[in-house]
């Protein structure tokens, strides 16, 4: 087995090298610049994961089988002293042994790939340093390409000044990619939520194992990354040669995303609350340590998190496909724009002049305008909701699509009110306890950092409400309505009220997001609110996992954040992105972090943990097995 694993791992590493080698030959690292190494490592991780997850699936079908529900229950909440039968049952059937082989394989494959890349780039760098040009043979292997791959500035290559630890770092990056992939593959079968109790149980039964160690590694990962991001931001630190800002952005995205996984890897209870608090504090430090560019991207990501959470209520909870969600975003943005910059709107400034109020100053501050923007958006939601109450599915999608366009055309053509395509200008930023935004931002925070900070707080609030709604009476009514309107109505659900509430609450969240977006942009124009905003919001909840707030955050990071990192590879960016989406939809049709409910619908039964029909048989099976093993053990003792 180990030898088989080893050769298999090396083979996997070689195949990955072939793939990445092609990317290097066509000059992708040069285009990416600084982020080349981490981005390639992520690509390798995705590649490894695709291979390892199949392997882990095959093995588990033959070997240990899925975790029995009774064990999960025990493992999750009542970890007390374990009896002998528990111990043997864990050893018998937990996939942790399997995970170990997968983990080893991932590490080895990653190391193989890393060493190959380090050796090849070392040879190329040495050749160039000694004046041998490779360009005539491979036209894209130029100093700038190799430098990006190694993570140094291009000038260091011709002088042959590459420190040795750079190559070690390359190996480390790809080995880490292998570890990440195998972790994901090992956890995939039983789901991350189950991975935590399983690892904990196996640790209690047979001491620290690779599975439990990797669980702690998974929890520690976001904090390590946060520290790394902080270090990268220190003056004088240069880790990746060029485009360092993008590298930091990439790490910020990965750190935030891995924070969600860390949360899932922690055990429910005290451990999870500690992890959650630390993660929260960690993320809240980000606006302070990032620069203007990174903050602006992250701010946009979290504005879209709010959008996604709101749209998720309409689409994910209530099952009403809304393609015109941008309308409420626009309503929120323009409401705040009118209140904050009345002078930009000819109609409103006239009106205010007649009323004897000066239109030159904002009517309301950011926080006092918030309820107004939310209310206006909610009214918009109800106004859309009433005519489409009887529509379902495709027809609903088309009507909402039209509504989104109508609002945008209104903004474009109601020149007197909205200033048409010239837009509303000079919208003010959120203030803090009466302090002007300038005072707030002149010190610790950049202006975009402040937006990011507000976006974080707002989306945390929205997420809290969304999660509470999920398990509320209203949430149940939404899900029931999504499943079967007639039956839901026959159990006493007031369909009209329930649907309108979904539209209104979803619109409220979009209104909040729109207001912050207006403040972030300072000047807003009708073209900011095109159909593509709706599509982005819908795509991010589908990729992340409909109905799952954590998935939505992940979706926003991937769909709104990652493209900014990949900006360097311009013409390949869209291709890479499309490929990523296609792969995601094939291997995880329910999204990256699906909600429990969606998993049931879309995933295969084993992955969704629904093998319970087989459970009673397995249980008796288990008792028999442990019984006989105990008997033989006793027999042996007696024989001695």
């Amino acid at each position, binding site marked *: 087995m180990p030898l088989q694993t080893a050769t298999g791992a090396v083979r996997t590493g070689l195949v990955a090298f072939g793939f990445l080698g092609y990317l290097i030959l066509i000059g992708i690292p040069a285009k990416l610049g600084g982020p080349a190494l981490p981005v390639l490592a992520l690509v390798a991780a995705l590649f490894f994961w695709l291979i390892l997850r199949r392997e882990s699936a095959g093995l588990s079908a033959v070997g240990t089988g899925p975790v029995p529900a009774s064990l999960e229950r025990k493992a999750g909440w009542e970890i007390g002293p374990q009896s002998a039968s528990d111990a043997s049952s864990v050893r018998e059937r937990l996939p942790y042994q399997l995970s170990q082989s997968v983990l080893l394989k991932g590490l080895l494959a990653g190391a193989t790939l890393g060493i190959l890349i380090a050796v090849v780039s070392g040879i190329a760098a040495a050749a160039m340093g000694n004046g041998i040009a490779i360009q005539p043979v491979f036209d894209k292997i130029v100093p700038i390409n190799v430098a990006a791959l190694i993570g140094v500035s291009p000038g260091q290559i011709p002088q042959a000044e590459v420190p040795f630890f750079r190559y070690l770092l390359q190996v480390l990056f790809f080995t880490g990619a292998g570890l990440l992939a195998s972790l994901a593959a090992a956890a995939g079968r039983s789901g991350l939520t189950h991975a935590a109790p399983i690892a904990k149980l196996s640790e209690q039964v047979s001491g620290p194992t690779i599975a439990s160690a990797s669980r702690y590694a998974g929890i520690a990962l976001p904090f390590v990354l946060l520290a790394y991001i902080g270090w990268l931001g220190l003056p004088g630190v240069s880790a990746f040669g060029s485009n360092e800002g993008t590298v930091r952005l990439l790490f910020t995205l990965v750190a935030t995303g891995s924070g969600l996984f860390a949360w899932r890897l922690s055990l429910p209870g005290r451990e999870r609350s500690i992890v959650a608090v630390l993660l929260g504090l960690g993320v809240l430090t980000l606006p302070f340590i990032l620069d203007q560019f990174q903050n602006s991207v992250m701010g946009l990501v979290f504005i879209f998190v709010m959008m996604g959470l709101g749209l998720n209520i309409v689409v994910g909870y209530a099952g009403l496909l809304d393609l015109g969600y941008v309308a409420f975003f626009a309503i929120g943005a323009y409401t705040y724009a009118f209140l904050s910059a009345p002078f930009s709107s000819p109609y409103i400034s006239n009106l205010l002049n007649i009323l004897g109020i000066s239109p030159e100053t904002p009517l309301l501050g950011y926080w006092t305008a918030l309820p107004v923007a939310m209310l206006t958006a909610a009214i918009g939601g109800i106004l859309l909701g009433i005519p489409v109450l009887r529509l379902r599915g495709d027809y609903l999608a088309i009507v909402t699509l039209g509504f989104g366009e109508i609002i945008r055309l209104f903004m474009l053509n109601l020149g007197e009110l909205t200033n048409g395509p010239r837009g509303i200008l000079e919208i003010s930023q959120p203030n803090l306890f009466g302090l002007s935004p300038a005072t707030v931002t002149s010190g610790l925070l950049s202006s975009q950092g402040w937006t990011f900070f507000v976006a974080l707080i707002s989306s945390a609030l929205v997420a809290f409400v969304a999660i509470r709604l999920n398990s509320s009476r209203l949430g149940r009514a939404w899900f029931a309505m999504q499943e*079967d309107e*007639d*039956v*839901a109505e*026959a159990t*006493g*659900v007031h369909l009209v009220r329930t649907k309108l509430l979904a539209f209104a609450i979803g619109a409220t969240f979009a209104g909040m997001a729109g207001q912050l977006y207006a403040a972030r942009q300072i000047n807003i124009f009708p073209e900011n609110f095109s159909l593509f905003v709706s599509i982005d919001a819908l795509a991010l909840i589908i990729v992340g996992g409909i109905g799952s707030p954590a998935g939505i955050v992940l979706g926003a990071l991937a769909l709104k954040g990652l493209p900014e990192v990949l900006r360097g590879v311009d013409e390949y960016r869209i291709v890479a992105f499309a490929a990523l989406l296609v792969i995601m939809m094939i291997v995880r049709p329910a999204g990256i972090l699906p909600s429990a409910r969606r998993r*049931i619908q879309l995933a295969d039964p084993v992955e969704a943990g629904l093998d319970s029909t087989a459970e009673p048989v397995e249980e008796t099976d288990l008792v028999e097995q442990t019984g006989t093993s105990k008997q033989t053990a006793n027999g042996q003792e007696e024989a001695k």
Partner: protein
Amino acid sequence: MLILDSVHTYYGHIHALKGISLTVNKGEVVTLIGSNGAGKTTTLNTISGVLPTRAGAIYFQDSPRSAGDGSPNARDIDIRLDRLPAHDVARLGVSQSPEGRKIFARLTVQENLAMGAFARSDPEGVLHDLERVFELFPRLKERLSQPGGTLSGGEQQMLAIGRALMSSPRILLLDEPSMGLAPLLVQQIFQIIREINAQGMTILLVEQNAQAALQVADRGYVLETGNIVLSGPAGDLLANPQVAEAYLGI
């Protein structure tokens, strides 16, 4: 308790129910039998308000829930169900376990049962009824946190009946509870229907399995292409040669 007075129902311009009149008295099990397309399910859906009544009337009589303690104001309510939307009919205590079970597949068993009690605002009563459902269907208690869609057919039927009972109904409308179940399970389900009735529940039972239904029921109606062609005590119908030939396959 429930009176249908020449009820007409249409699907578009298709005349599905052509003047159905039937009565269900308090504490009775009344069964509605007939072949495919006779209008059995349509009748139930019309009562519960999912389908609109084009002509005729549906009366529902009961002492109001809150004043059931015999206070002087406790008068029998007499309500035209055909004028109410479905969710208000449900709130009055007319509870339907629909054909094909139609449990909420992605909601857990617990949430499904909670949906049954959606219209109620008495937490203690809900808990009490939950206990009662678990007594009737111990299987559901074992499967509490499992999604409804993963239950077996028989368990789903139990859940559908349990969900209907959770609304603490005045009258229970059961639509083909034996559909697609193994003979042993069918027996079990009918046994449970008997038990529920013995606890005082009024039941209107729609069935294709005429024999089993008539054995459980007090009275029966035979439905044919939207008309009631025969009615009477269940025993008489069982003995009726016409019924035997057409529906019992004897």
